[in-house]
């Protein structure tokens, strides 16, 4: 083999602590190496050109680039060598930046390590074989999981592009958290006025199939060919028949059902339509409160319903959909304020969450948009907002900033001052984080134009005095203790991963971080892709963000799907497991360890059992390779021989 070695200086990133010239010089001594050179930026266009020229002039058959992490530029260099006529798998990248130059400052030691890393790559390359992709057909339907604003945007964009969309929403209506908001910052747009039309579009588009009050049960398959089982939860109402007239909700005698849409402020009927703009606008029976389903007597709704849509015998139903790509927009939950015992959330009725306050502010909310206290219905005059409740606090395992609370507090305080001009609004904050377009100006408006009093410091205790609440805290700018007698306290509860986020991730085979937010493929360069091909992310399931960012990601994910679907077939990655049937003893251990269900057992004509890899499902993780007692199953491009060649050369 004729091998060329290219050492990247990466400006001073590598050359600062590694003698790249010496590495190139040493590389010339390695077996099969016929050309070696160092260059300032190998990834640049002239840098790639140099590789391509060298391939031609030195008749190279394999290339090693010693540069940054392969996660950064492996694809770049593979493309470059392919253009020059070399199989892209006859390329190896040695990571002498993240694994070497960035770690230590000892130039001599770093240079030695860089030489070792290059030597290993050369030995690996000498064992490499040309690999070739295969083509599989793409099913051009897309599944969108979650019907919040991110999922809605993604679904509408895909639909506009002519794709068939399947949307699954856990709740009885789409709209997500945004549907509960009264106004949006920093423009004070009416939330349901800007979201409502989009929700209606979802219902009316002929190429969107909506499964509301449904959840993803199981997912199998791979990019281009996923099979999804969807659990349609029992609503006890035939939604094909229901017209959403709401007569049943007028007559239902069980009026104490928990009102999820209004965050438990007030109650609703056991058979209900969650809110006036709900999509689909269909009634559902809450089986926890229905008199017939809990006590066996009533059936009033059945008698009332003009279209006879009530089905008390309804059971959950599983339907299967086939799609080629999946957009996950499963949203988030809000932090449970009861965790902070000192605030008394859950104990004192007038200590409420910001989402509850949002419902109070909303004209479609429990008090018709009039600001009242939950305890006695009195209009509050002194209102305290407490920021960072479940954000930026290591003690409750929420070290991250939720990113939206500073802004929604300012909005709620402005709305409060607007509704009740003689009220006093106080905001207890740690820092104000307002980095969006027009955001800081909005905070200043709250402070200067609306006279909202910002107090920098934490609240240590809230307790009742008479029918009011004493809020005890600190003003760390003045260095004094503060005590405010408030009528209402609003806790700015932070964003946390949805309760179902982790199980869903396991069904999707995507990874999540320590807080349950889904991991993007690259934090900067692949923000809506996951490491599972064909699965894309949008909205807060990936990390806290506001509405503009969620909508942006929804569109981004949709465009990724459209790019994927612009081809009729896709290339598979050839770096997958492969079984040597002569050595396979059919023990089935590989089938047990495979996390992707990519291995199945087959029986040959002579009756012997052998394992078989479904190459389109295999993700190339190598678990089977490590497990196989006979070393019969090998991961292409990371075979035992290749790995041992790397190790052996280190100890020669």
């Amino acid at each position, binding site marked *: 083999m004729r091998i060329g070695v290219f050492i990247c200086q990466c400006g001073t990133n590598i050359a600062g602590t590694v003698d790249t010239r010496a590495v190139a010089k040493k590389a010339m001594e390695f077996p099969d190496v016929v050309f070696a050179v160092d260059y300032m930026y190998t990834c640049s266009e002239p840098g790639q050109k140099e590789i391509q020229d060298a391939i031609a002039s030195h008749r190279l058959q394999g290339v090693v680039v010693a540069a940054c992490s392969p996660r950064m530029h492996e694809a770049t260099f593979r493309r470059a060598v392919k253009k020059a006529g070399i199989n892209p798998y006859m390329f190896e990248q040695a990571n002498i930046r993240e694994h070497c130059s960035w770690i230590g400052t000892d130039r001599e030691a770093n240079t030695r390590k860089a030489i070792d890393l290059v030597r290993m790559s050369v030995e690996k390359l000498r064992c490499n074989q040309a690999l070739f992709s295969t083509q599989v057909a793409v099913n051009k339907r897309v599944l969108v999981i979650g019907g919040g604003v991110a999922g809605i945007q993604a679904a509408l964009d895909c639909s506009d592009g002519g794709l068939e969309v399947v949307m699954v929403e856990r709740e009885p209506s789409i709209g997500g958290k945004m549907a509960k908001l009264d106004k949006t910052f920093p423009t004070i747009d009416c939330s349901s006025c800007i979201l409502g039309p989009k929700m209606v579009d979802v219902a009316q588009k002929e190429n969107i199939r909506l499964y509301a009050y449904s959840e993803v049960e199981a997912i199998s398959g791979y990019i281009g060919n996923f099979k999804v089982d969807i659990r349609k939860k029992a609503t006890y109402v035939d939604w094909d028949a229901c017209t959403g007239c709401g007569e049943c909700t007028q007559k239902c005698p069980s009026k104490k059902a928990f009102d999820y849409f209004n965050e438990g402020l007030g109650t609703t009927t056991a058979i209900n339509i969650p809110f006036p703009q709900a999509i689909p606008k269909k009634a559902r029976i809450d089986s926890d409160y229905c008199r017939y389903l809990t006590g066996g007597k009533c059936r009033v709704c059945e008698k009332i319903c003009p279209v006879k849509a009530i089905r008390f015998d309804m059971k959950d139903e599983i339907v299967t959909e086939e799609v080629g790509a999946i957009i996950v927009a499963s949203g988030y939950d809000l932090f449970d304020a009861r965790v*902070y*015992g*000192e605030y*008394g959330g859950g*104990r004192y009725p007038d200590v409420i969450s910001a989402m509850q306050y949002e419902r109070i502010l909303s004209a479609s909310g429990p008090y018709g948009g009039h600001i009242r206290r939950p305890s006695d219905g009195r209009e509050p005059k002194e209102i305290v907002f407490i920021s960072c409740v479940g954000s930026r606090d290591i*003690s409750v395992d929420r070290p991250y900033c939720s990113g939206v609370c500073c802004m929604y507090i300012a909005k709620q305080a402005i709305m409060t001052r607007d509704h009740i001009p003689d009220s006093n609004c106080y905001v207890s904050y740690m820092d104000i984080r307002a980095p969006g377009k027009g955001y800081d100006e909005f905070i200043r408006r709250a402070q200067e134009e609306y006279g909202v009093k910002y107090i920098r410091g934490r609240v240590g*205790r*809230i*307790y*009742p*005095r008479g029918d009011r609440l004493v809020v005890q805290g600190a003003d760390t700018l003045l260095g004094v203790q503060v005590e405010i007698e408030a009528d209402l306290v609003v806790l700015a509860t932070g964003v946390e991963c949805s309760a179902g986020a982790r199980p869903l991730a396991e069904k999707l085979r995507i990874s999540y971080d320590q807080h349950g937010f889904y991991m993007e493929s690259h934090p900067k360069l692949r923000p809506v892709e996951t490491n599972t091909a064909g699965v894309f992310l949008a909205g807060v399931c990936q990390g806290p963000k506001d509405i503009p960012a969620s909508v942006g990601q929804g569109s981004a994910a949709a465009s990724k799907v459209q790019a994927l679907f612009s081809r009729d077939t896709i290339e598979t990655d050839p770096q997958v497991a492969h079984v040597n049937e002569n050595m396979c003893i059919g023990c089935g251990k590989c089938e047990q360890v495979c996390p992707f269900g990519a291995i199945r057992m087959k029986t040959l004509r002579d009756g012997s059992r052998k394992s078989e890899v479904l190459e389109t499902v295999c993700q190339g993780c190598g678990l089977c390779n490590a497990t196989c007692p006979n070393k019969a199953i090998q991961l292409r491009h990371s075979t035992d021989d290749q790995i041992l060649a790397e190790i052996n050369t280190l100890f020669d």
Partner: protein
Amino acid sequence: MLKRVAYYPGCSCEGMAIEYDQSVRALCYVLGIELVGIPDWNCCGSTPSHSYDPLLGAALAGRNLAIAKSQGLDVVMTPCPSCLKALKTANQVFRERPSEFLDVLGMPFSGDVRAISVLQLLYEEIGPNLIQKAVKFPFKNKKIVPYYGCLLTRPPAFAQFDDPENPVSMDRLIEAAGAAVPDFPHKTECCGAALGITQRDVVMRLTGRILEMARAVGADAVAVACPLCQQNLDLRQDQVNRALKENFNLPVLYITQIIGCALGIDRKTLGIEKLAVKTDALFQSA
């Protein structure tokens, strides 16, 4: 359930808080928990030792754990939250700086002897349900508020017991003893602690606030689990009254005395008569 624990009374239980010691012993006897003395136990070091040198404080407390271990015991129970903190710190310092710690201690130490408070023993090992079943003389129509103080549940990662800001263990135990427990917002507010010696006015203000809140929620008595809290709330109540021109008359009992009474142990055994604020009204049926 634990049947046998090493008992570390600490210095206050030999002096100011002797009634705490008496009631702990009497209650554990009735509940069938054997308290095994730690032979030749020494002072936990308290605040002075660890302020001077953390290693000295840890070794002083650690010696008691080491003796308990040599007696074949894995759990040391102490009524005093401050002693509890010292004992737990010994284990922590041992984990962080093992060689230095062993060097100062000069005896075998394994770091696996668990230190718990008497409250933890009652709440986690025995439990309110069992206590409720054993109650013979419930506090009918009485309101008792729990005062936890600053140390029992904090810092949360260190204490690993109850909620740091709204603890409920004593609430549940008082309920088990038959009394009503009003919501008591000041249950973890500072009582002023040892400032009673150097800056008495601070304690007057802070303790006064706690007593004021207890009165406001209609308490007939306050339950405590810390000798220093008890001292500030009970022994200094007269001082508070003079300083703030108040007339508080709130009995302040140890949780062990309250449960002991409900279980029918006689008040003399529990050292009730040693309390500064008289408790007669609490024991008259309303």
